């Protein structure tokens, strides 16, 4: 499996994602600079848009990064069926770029939040969740100030009907409750895919929990799903 990790000015989870896919999971991994615009499908099976504060999150998170040359390459890669995962700031950029619907607003309590969160896996048929079982609860940290997922009523309804919601914030038992929602996201949404299912955006950071020493390994399930998908299709 060949992972490409995009680095924008202000990205900071690039090294963490690299460590997870390269050192922990032993996959071929390379960085991609935001000013490049190569044909990605020749060189990569999965593109990661990592977390961070691209352009300082100034104006709106992801608003300036989406115009980078690499993003037209990413859009082309996605439309050809390539796997794209946007984590945290990467999710925000995918929404700004129109590769995923909706927007990530400021957390409803207006504070930055860094803590472990519980995610209920809504679907295990996506390329990103095939190593999980539906209803499984993953323990993965969040770290963001703008993770409050919002879309208009019909869009949310369409997402739900088409099964595009990948993860929801839940209790440890998998109950989706207002108290389990750390940021005010509509329907406790923590991650969604596009209609085709090959682009995932999620606010929590799976790359932060791939080793026991880091307090948990549930994040590995997501990368392992991607690798499994690659092995099947590749």
């Amino acid at each position: 499996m060949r992972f490409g990790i995009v680095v924008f000015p202000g990205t900071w989870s690039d090294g963490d994602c690299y460590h997870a896919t390269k050192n922990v999971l032993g996959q071929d991994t390379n960085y991609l600079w935001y000013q490049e615009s190569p044909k990605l499908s020749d060189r990569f099976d999965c593109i990661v848009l990592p977390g961070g504060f691209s352009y300082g999150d100034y104006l709106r998170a992801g608003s300036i990064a989406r115009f980078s040359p690499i993003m037209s390459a990413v859009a082309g890669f996605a439309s050809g069926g390539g796997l794209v995962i946007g984590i945290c700031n990467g999710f925000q950029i995918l929404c700004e770029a129109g590769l995923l619907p909706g927007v990530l607003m400021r957390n409803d309590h207006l504070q930055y939040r860094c803590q472990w969160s519980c995610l209920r896996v809504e679907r295990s048929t996506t390329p990103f969740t095939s190593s999980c079982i539906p209803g499984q609860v993953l323990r993965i940290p969040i770290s963001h100030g703008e993770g409050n997922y919002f879309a208009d009523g019909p869009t949310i309804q369409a997402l739900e009907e088409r099964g595009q919601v990948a993860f929801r914030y839940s209790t440890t038992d998998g109950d989706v409750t207002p108290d389990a929602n750390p940021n005010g996201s509509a329907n406790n949404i923590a991650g969604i895919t596009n209609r085709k299912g090959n682009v995932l955006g999620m606010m929590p950071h799976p790359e932060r929990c791939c080793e026991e020493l880091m307090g948990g390994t549930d994040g590995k399930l997501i990368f392992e799903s991607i690798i499994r998908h690659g092995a099947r299709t590749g």
Partner: protein
Amino acid sequence: MPVTKEILDEIALSEEEYHRIADGLDREPNAVELGMFGALWSEHCGYKHSRPLLRLFPSTSKRVLLPPGQENAGAVDIGDGLAVVFKIESHNHPSAVEPFQGAATGVGGIVRDILAMGARPIALLNSLRFGPLEEPGNRHFLNGVVEGISWYGNCIGVPDVGGEVSFSSSYSQNPLVNALCVGLIEKERLVSASVGSEGNILLLAGAETGRDGIHGASGLASRTFEDEREMRPTVQVGNPFLEKLLIEACLEVAASGCLEGMQDLGAAGLTSSAIEAAARGKAGIDLDISRVHRRDSGMDTYEVMLSESQERMLLVINPSHKAQVESIFQKWGIPCVEIGTVNKSGVARIYETARPAAQLPIDLLTNPPRYRLQGVKPREQVEMQRYPLGSLPLPSESPNQVLLKLLESPNVCSKEDVYRQYDQQVQTNTVATPGGDAAILRIKGSNKGIALCTDGNGRYCYLDPYKGGAIAVAEACRNISCTGAEPIALTDCLNFGNPEYPETYYQMEWCIRGMAKACRVLGVPVVSGNVSLYNETQGHAIYPTPIVGALGLFEDVRRHVGLGFQGPGHTVILLGASMMRGKARDLAGSEYIERLHNVVAGRPNIDLELERQVQELCRRAIRDGIVASAHDCSDGGLAVALAESCIAGGVGFSGDLKVGGRWDAALFGEAQSRIVVSLRPEDLSELTKLTAELDVPFVSLGRTTSNPVLTLGGLIDLPVKELEHAWKRGLGTPTTAQ
């Protein structure tokens, strides 16, 4: 004299100092030159009052890589060819003027100190002090400071892994904001903040220079706050996004091998940065200020030389590498211009294009007068030490009620509301997040790890500067030892009032002496630090508050423990005491007598030999896998420590040993050198063997239970849920965003 008293006041120089300058130059300095002296001879840059005392600290060990004060931060060898670089610094005065930006730029500044060593910043800690939240204004400081740290630290991708927050009326209107940054580097690649040899050129990289913070170093750090409004135009606004790019670009330049030296621009901006780098190289420099990229039009030489615009670095390179270095900065979108050259003259010559603006010997600039004053023991201290603690009545509250009150005291309670606003895990090294005795980071590519904490109890230092200083060091090291790591180096931030008052000078001198003594007994050197003086408002000085940042090393980071009990059926032991007998003297300076009796009195004490043995025992027991948890007894005493271990572990505790003497002193007294450990009953014999070997007293307290209730000596009987509820509500209304 051609300058007025007002001008000298403005730049915080005395008339005597002015004459010393004129004598040294053999002429009157011009305005630019005088401004440069004001900055470099300020306490912040020149350590006029503190340097002679700082020499008292032991500063060497087989791990210390650099002499103290030589570079921007201390560097410690952790083996495997790696060095940890760390330093703590205050941003108290800017935070008092504008809490959000003051704290934010404090983080930015300390990060650049670490960056200047060529090291990647891998962690931040913050030690914060505020006035009581019930008093108006203090919550504004708390919220602003925490949001500023969160905003800046989160954006640059350096995890904030620990620190402390505490409250006392002595910090009302004068909050303490001390930021500690840790960096990691291959020790062969350490960068010096020196201009190196003749022919090198100086590059200024980063933000444009504007009229930010002019007089920051001399003005803010030498004055108190009655004129706060008037100083407001000097506030600096940080740009964490640019800082993040600057980190990556400077590390790339350092890795390219093109770098001769590097220095950040902090207090007093270009003046201190360039002059100090020249002094380190025993060289001279020519600077052409017209080349400095500026944000504001019409800035004069004085303003450019003294601007404290953030996110700027000075790089020293050989001219043959100029194109390569420029292309790296271009890649990261950061302006970078050549502003000067290095020569052998020993003189700093400043030009605006061809027009000379200043010409000063670097020796004179960097050798301010040193003041060794005669301190006087504060009368208050004598009175408070004599206070008859034995005459304090037992409280009307029950032991249960006292425990709940202490758990919800802002000084004891959970600080989760604060630290969950900080990214604690980015860079994926954080093994133990905030909330424990110390933070733990792994070192990727090895089994090693480091532990980090900050500590400093102003109340103890107010009551007894010498013992309080010693306790600050002991407690910081104890927190490290409670994780299993060995304390290997310290950094300190000395926060005091106006040293020109003999009482304040006395506090500073004896705090430092006490700290130095503890360092020697515990075998831990001080490798870096910072001094923040003139912390007072309307004539009231803060408590003398030396903050100690401690660094610990794990050879195998998997061998660490936390403070939470690890399941039911474990035996719980108190190390460092042989019985449960409450003595009035243990109430000295305690959280309990301040909260319940509204008294800050008594004379804190510590036996440093016992301290050393207890810590060594604790570390060995953890390393050998004998104990499953360890937690030191500090604010709130033994009962609070037990409650915290129950809450963190989600189990109960049952102890029925007899408590003698005053029950309040036994449960809530703050005798030092005590650690609560838990272990499987079958490991007890191993532990007792160790206690015998190291001659450490201990007492068995009881055992952990699956029934989630804390009972102790027939005095305490409370469900853990109730303890947790009190502990979690202590900060009241959660801090809200700006």
